[in-house]
């Protein structure tokens, strides 16, 4: 409880209320006010999530901070919130990144400032809702609502080709979600009128139905992750999105898809999950290897990092579907770390873009001469993206490779190729952008990070290193839930 209010509700509604307040400041004459208000909102929004961590009981996998109220009694739909080890950290991560994104847009966004900031604040609340919801319809509402602010962010503050990207992004994700709704309604009927996700977990479901349910959920979640072959919306969306949009897209949006697998697909349809694990692993391996290769020759920095994101998310789905503790905890840690690292890389690219207005690798070269501090930060994040030990990205990759070896030598073999490809595409890009002699007058005129940018980079650098050197605080909250989920998934739910 915070001031007598339930924690999760506060984490959802406080940013949304601030978002509405920011909207109320109106046009760009009041931009300074809008900025300050959104900063206050996002910082408060982050602070109120802290009790989730400090008050979290690490010994149990039960839902905590539960809130249960009637909502639509006619259909037995509840306003039911709660977190366990799997979802809790993402609420913190999300609220953390809201602060970062508000800061990142501080001077860069000059038009429709209030609307821009408000979109991010509102989206922050909605994403918290996705992670906190325990009622399937409540989840679905947040899930779909999440699209709207992102649609607006890319569509209004995006690049020249933003309309194509937004439509593609919207249709892709919407189509997947509709099938999820169908299977939620099926589950509602089968469970004699319950929309409780936890009730779905306990239901016995015949194999054929499990497979349909799994596929329907897969359509929704795989698009969000995104998994091969439904990934092509992501590079376009990233390229067109403003920096803040890319950060939230990479750090949070992709995670809700992976989260869905853990909250819905696997516990509701465990037998189908086992049966289709081969396919899931194959798709994950394709993501790791094929997408890693595709990333190599991208000429647009954002596209390169977008492909690298897909490749890294392949680790997440691989970790899930090898069904062991190393893999699953590794995958969850990878999700958190990828938030930091990919978010930081998009911010780095944003720093360059704000100055030169190009994302093309070929337009740079020798940036280190003019921006040594920036180059140092970029180096750290590039190394993290290559999975260097001591950075957060190593933790997840390492654990997933360990888990994959337990399942099958060749899974580990394929996953470990990221050591080579990941380093190749990231460091080759770094070399062409940062090293060398100053290549043109745009680079010649570059100025190093200002205080605001330095602050953002420093915070992310600290997070990346802290998590890499001491991942225990992140992993210990996952344990009970992951262990229980693994036990749950190991038991057949076929009707006797």
């Amino acid at each position: 409880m915070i001031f007598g209010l339930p924690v999760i509700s506060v984490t959802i509604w406080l940013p949304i209320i601030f978002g509405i307040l920011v909207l109320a400041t109106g046009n760009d004459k009041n931009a300074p006010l809008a900025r300050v208000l959104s900063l206050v909102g996002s910082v408060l929004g982050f602070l109120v999530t802290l009790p989730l961590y400090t008050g979290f009981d690490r010994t149990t996998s039960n839902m905590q901070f539960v809130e249960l109220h009637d909502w639509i009694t006619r259909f037995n739909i509840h306003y039911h919130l709660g977190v366990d080890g799997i979802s809790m950290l993402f609420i913190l991560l999300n609220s953390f990144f809201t602060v970062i994104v508000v800061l990142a847009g501080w001077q860069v966004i000059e038009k429709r400032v209030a609307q821009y900031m408000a979109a991010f604040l509102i989206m922050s609340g909605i994403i918290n809702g996705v992670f906190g919801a325990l009622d399937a319809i409540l989840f679905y509402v947040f899930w779909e609502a999440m699209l709207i602010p992102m649609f607006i962010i890319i569509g209004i503050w995006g690049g020249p080709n933003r309309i194509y990207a937004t439509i593609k992004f919207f249709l892709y994700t919407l189509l997947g979600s509709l099938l999820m709704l169908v299977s939620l309604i099926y589950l509602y009927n089968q469970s004699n009128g319950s929309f409780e996700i936890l009730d779905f977990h306990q239901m016995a479901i015949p194999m054929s139905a499990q497979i349909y349910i799994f596929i329907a959920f897969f359509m929704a979640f795989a698009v969000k992750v995104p998994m091969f072959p439904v990934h092509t919306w992501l590079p376009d969306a990233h390229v067109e999105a403003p920096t803040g949009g890319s950060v939230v897209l990479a750090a949070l949006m992709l995670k809700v898809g992976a989260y869905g697998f853990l909250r819905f697909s696997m516990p509701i349809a465990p037998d189908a999950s086992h049966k289709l694990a081969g396919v899931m692993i194959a798709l994950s391996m394709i993501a790791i290897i094929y997408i890693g290769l595709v990333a190599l020759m991208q000429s647009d920095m954002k596209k390169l990092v977008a492909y690298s994101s897909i490749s890294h998310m392949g680790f997440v789905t691989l970790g899930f579907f090898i069904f062991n503790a190393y893999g699953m905890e590794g995958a969850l840690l990878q999700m958190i770390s990828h938030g930091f690292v990919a978010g930081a890389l998009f911010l780095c690219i944003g720093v360059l873009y704000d100055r030169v207005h190009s994302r093309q690798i070929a337009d740079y070269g020798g940036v280190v001469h003019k921006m040594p501090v920036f180059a140092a930060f970029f180096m750290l994040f590039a190394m993290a993206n290559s999975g260097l030990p001591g950075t957060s990205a190593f933790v997840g990759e390492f654990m997933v490779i360990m888990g994959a070896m337990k399942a099958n030598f060749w899974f580990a073999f394929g996953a470990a190729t990221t050591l080579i490809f990941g380093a190749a595409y990231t460091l080759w890009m770094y070399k062409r952008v940062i090293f060398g002699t100053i290549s043109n007058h745009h680079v010649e005129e570059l100025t190093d990070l200002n205080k605001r940018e330095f602050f953002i980079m420093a915070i992310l650098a600290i997070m990346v290193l802290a998590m890499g050197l001491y991942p225990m605080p992140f992993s210990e909250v996952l344990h009970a839930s992951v262990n229980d989920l693994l036990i749950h998934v190991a038991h057949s739910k076929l009707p006797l």
Partner: protein
Amino acid sequence: MDIQTYYLLVPLAPLCGAIAAGLFGKWLGRKMSHRITIAMVGVAFYSAVQIFLDVMNGHQFTGPVYTWLVSGDTSFHVGFLIDRLTVTMMLVVTSVSLMVHIYTIGYMSEDPGYQRFFSYISLFTFSMLMLVMSDNFMQLFFGWEAVGLVSYLLIGFWYDRPTAIYANLKAFLVNRVGDFGFILGIALVLMVFGTLDYAAVFAKAAAHASDAAPIAGMSVNLLTAICILLFVGAMGKSAQFPLHVWLPDSMEGPTPISALIHAATMVTAGIFMVARMSPMFELSDTALSFVMVIGAITALFMGFLGIIQNDIKRVIAYSTLSQLGYMTVALGVSAYPVAIFHLMTHAFFKALLFLGAGSVIIGMHHDQDIRNMGGLRKYMPITWITSLIGSLALIGTPFFAGFYSKDSIIEAVGMSHLAGSSFAYFSVVAGVFVTAFYSFRMYFLVFHGEERFGKAHAADHHDDHAHADDHHADAHDDHHGDAHDDHAHHHGLAPGQKPHETPWVVWLPLVLLAIPSAIVGYIAIEPMLFGGYFKDAIYISEHHEVMAELHEEFHGAFAMAMHSFTSLPFWLALAGVASSAFFYLKRPDIPAAIQKRFQWIYTVLENKYYFDRFNDWFYAGGARGASTFLSKYADRFLIDGMIVNGSANMVGKISGVVRKVQSGYIYHYAFTMIVGVFILLTIRNWFA
């Protein structure tokens, strides 16, 4: 002070130095930065000595510092294993690092990246210490990759040279190929043993000696697989054939780090690792044979390449490759103590040779081509004498450090009965002649003979690949008037200019390293190899009695040296020195004639057996080609073009057609309805 405090001080002191110079170097200034980092490495060295004394009193330590992660029921932690093997490495690393830190004051004095350089080498010292002090595979991998990172940063230290930033990327990626095997090996260890702690793994190793699992349709002995995969990591880090290609290029980095990282310490990490894992390697003769053959190939064939190099640093680089091959061969024949012994002596004399080369380079105003040198002994006496000591140690002159370690390796290989040991024996013996030849070729060309410096550069100078690129870089720099011009300016002495001896910060480390290069072998051979020095830090199976046989043959350090005068390696070494003296002092026309006569051999050697070409074409080119193809055709055309946008277009077209039907005219609808009714009736009648 509590001994455990020293354990922490050893790695953390250099880390503090690195952070101070790296983050606050601007405020601290040059002097404060080097004072702090040197003091911190000094603290580490002092602590290492304290620990050494403690360990010699029979103490050992293994235990966690903090728990890194717990997953399932496995806990991963960061911890230290302090035994005699560890403490030997700690002494080598901290002492060479201290020398290099001092030397750097002189060598980098005019470089704008002064503080950054100190920060990097201190960070390297930290990483290397974490690697050797680790008590588990996870932390080993951390140190392993961290030294790789610093190596990457330092090779590319002069980041506006195209050759340097090419070399550092290459080094990192080739190392990553090794690490790819290494992490798979670690994962297999975890799978088989359920833990990554050395102590637990080694204790259970024998019990799992015959575990097998099907991989790729064959039943594979898991322990053999683990050992070979781990060794693939060592092949990357210790630059063994065919992953050796990065080391010669790494010479693009400043000379102090060539000495510290690419000769004395980092590249020996693989050797150390295999010695550490001796309880596992001892259980697999297949893996040992593999190790030995790879080492033998590296020892001989990389030596050949040293003969034709003209860049002073590249000669020493190939020599390093060859010497690493010797160490690897020693590992393969289960003579782990000998390998570590050679690692130690090599660390001293090779660091000495590199730092000596750096001193020559300063004297020559950054000209590295030995064809432009000659007669330097008159102008740089300290550098001359110390380099001579280093060269004598390298070729295995009796009584010098390198003699004891190298001769022991050769004898050990001669006693081995493993598959492939006769080839290995041939390689290491033939390698003696090659080593002596290229070492003294360089020595004579640099310090003796005609003074060739200060003249206009030879026309063929520009054929040299590295130099050609360097000049290219210079052109760029001059164009932009960059801050790095002190290094990018035209190399070499002006006509009439003479080289001078370097300042004391440069020559003092040379002298301090020359002492162990001369005597450490004589002192250390008996206790280290035969006095049970390593105790249980190294395990040797009863089936591999090479060390025991060596012990039988050994009758004291003096007798060993005296005996060698009648042995083949000594005469081969002498022949190597004599022939290089003849060729390069008396009759310089002969090498040129040979080169002309056997042009094809020369071409093969000059192209380094075409490995770089092949890798560039096959791996780098192949990956780029595959990437372009997949990106263009699979991702953009097939998935995005055909399926995604294709289905969107399809929907668009169908809706276009359907839209026409919805014309809004009543008679269209009525007509459609009538047709529909007819069709429905027809169908009904068919089925009825």
